[in-house]
């Protein structure tokens, strides 16, 4: 029998694991209004951003597409855009409308802050009343698109949490679901193994090119990658080189074939495992995954990284006994039995898959309940 979870079916055939009204800032100067509206209305989720004003070309396209992608995410029942002026706001709105959900917009010009907050609150209330009529129903796990991430890594990451996430990812792909792994720089030294799993030569080549491009960029700037990756906390946790970190990080992707390569925030066209070419730091990487439509994210950590995504609930998985004690309030799933009790990774992965179905059905994560969530869209050019 096909495995199911209790989700919110959307009109376009996708399924949400949460049912929020996203209040999305079109640019940084709108954030105070976005926050004020979200404080006033339950069920709303503030998706704030930095910059956008002054961005241009590809960099601006990425910003618009990423904001809109978060609005299109199946976890979002309806969207209220908060903009400065109509034209820019419409750039984001028109990218969300095809998802078939209610999209409303308010602009600060010429109404001013108090009027914008009042009008935004009125509209958010209406959207939330409508969204609250949705009910969870059994939906196939094949409708899940899951992001796999790691951060605050140490040597336990490659031995416990990442392989456990990988085992869960394999189960989900077997059941018809989809997985995105990203963090391009964290493939340096492991790319030959991952490329060998590509479904065909073109996909393998596209993946290797992304890694080569990044390394060439670092080298051409005279940058020694050791200064940034592994990070200081990775090194304290025993990780010596980027190659060692990459081999451990890759374990999150399990063993299924690589089906496609995605640009920053791009949604996969098919099912199965995909690679997204995006910067590794967690907040911007999780933002890209949420924009691609991931409803859930599994985040392996060793020395501890508490951050989660606003739109896609983020499950923290840890197998380091010390971190599980000191940062217990930031961890959702304990994988320490692998090192402490010689438990099989596959068995712990099965348990994580059960937990994934539970979280998809409504069980909340620590980063949701403590609101340890942030949004950051990567920048690819300077602001003018």
């Amino acid at each position, binding site marked *: 029998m096909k495995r199911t979870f209790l989700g919110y079916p959307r009109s376009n055939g996708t399924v949400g694991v949460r049912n929020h009204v996203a209040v999305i800032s079109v640019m940084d100067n709108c954030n105070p209004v976005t926050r004020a509206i979200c404080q006033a209305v339950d069920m709303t989720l503030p998706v704030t951003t930095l910059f956008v004003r002054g961005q241009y070309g590809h960099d601006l396209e990425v910003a618009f597409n990423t904001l809109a992608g978060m609005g299109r995410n199946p976890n979002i029942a309806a969207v209220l855009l908060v903009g400065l002026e109509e034209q820019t706001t419409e750039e984001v709105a028109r990218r969300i409308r095809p998802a078939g959900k209610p999209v409303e917009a308010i602009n600060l010009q010429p109404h001013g802050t108090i009027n914008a907050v009042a009008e935004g609150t009125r509209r958010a209330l209406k959207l939330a009343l409508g969204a609250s009529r949705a009910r969870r129903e059994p939906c196939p796990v094949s409708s899940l698109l899951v992001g796999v991430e790691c951060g605050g890594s140490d040597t336990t990451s490659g031995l416990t949490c990442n392989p456990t996430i990988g085992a869960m990812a394999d189960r989900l792909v077997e059941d018809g679901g989809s997985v995105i792994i990203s963090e391009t720089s964290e493939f340096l030294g492991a790319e030959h193994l991952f490329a060998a799993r590509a479904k065909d030569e073109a996909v393998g080549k596209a993946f290797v090119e992304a890694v080569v491009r990044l390394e060439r960029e670092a080298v051409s700037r005279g940058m020694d990658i050791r200064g940034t990756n592994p990070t200081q906390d990775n090194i304290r946790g*025993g990780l010596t080189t980027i190659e060692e970190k990459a*081999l451990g990080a890759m374990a999150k992707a399990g063993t299924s074939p690589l089906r496609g390569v995605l640009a920053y925030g791009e949604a996969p066209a098919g099912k199965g495992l995909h690679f997204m070419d995006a910067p590794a730091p967690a907040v911007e990487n999780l933002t890209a995954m949420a924009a691609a439509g991931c409803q859930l994210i599994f985040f392996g950590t060793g020395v501890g990284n508490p951050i989660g995504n606003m739109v896609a609930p983020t499950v923290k998985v840890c197998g380091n006994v010390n971190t599980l004690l000191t940062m217990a309030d930031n961890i959702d799933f304990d994988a320490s039995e692998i090192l402490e009790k010689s438990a099989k990774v596959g068995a712990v992965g099965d348990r994580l898959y059960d937990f994934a179905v539970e979280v998809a059905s409504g069980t909340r994560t620590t980063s949701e309940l403590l609101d340890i969530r942030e949004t950051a869209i990567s920048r690819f050019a300077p602001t003018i």
Partner: protein
Amino acid sequence: MPRAIVLDRRDNVATLIDSGQPGQACTLQGEASGEVVLLQAVPFGHKVCVRATAAGGDILKYGQVIGKAAKPLAVGEHAHIHNVESARGRGDKAEG
């Protein structure tokens, strides 16, 4: 006795899953067995050399190259950034 995991038979480093003190014997698990005596303190999660490696030699973990020995490594030596270096993303070594 501290425990250290060897992930592949080809590996010349093992990962400690307890912290170890100088002179303490450390039990090898996983793809190797036996003991190595630690030459220095090795913190939880850090690596110890389990096969003598010359300067410039490959450091292997997961059966894969994770870097080069920057100095000769003796059995029992703490293997980390002071004696192992990455070969990737090294703009500092690029030809001017």
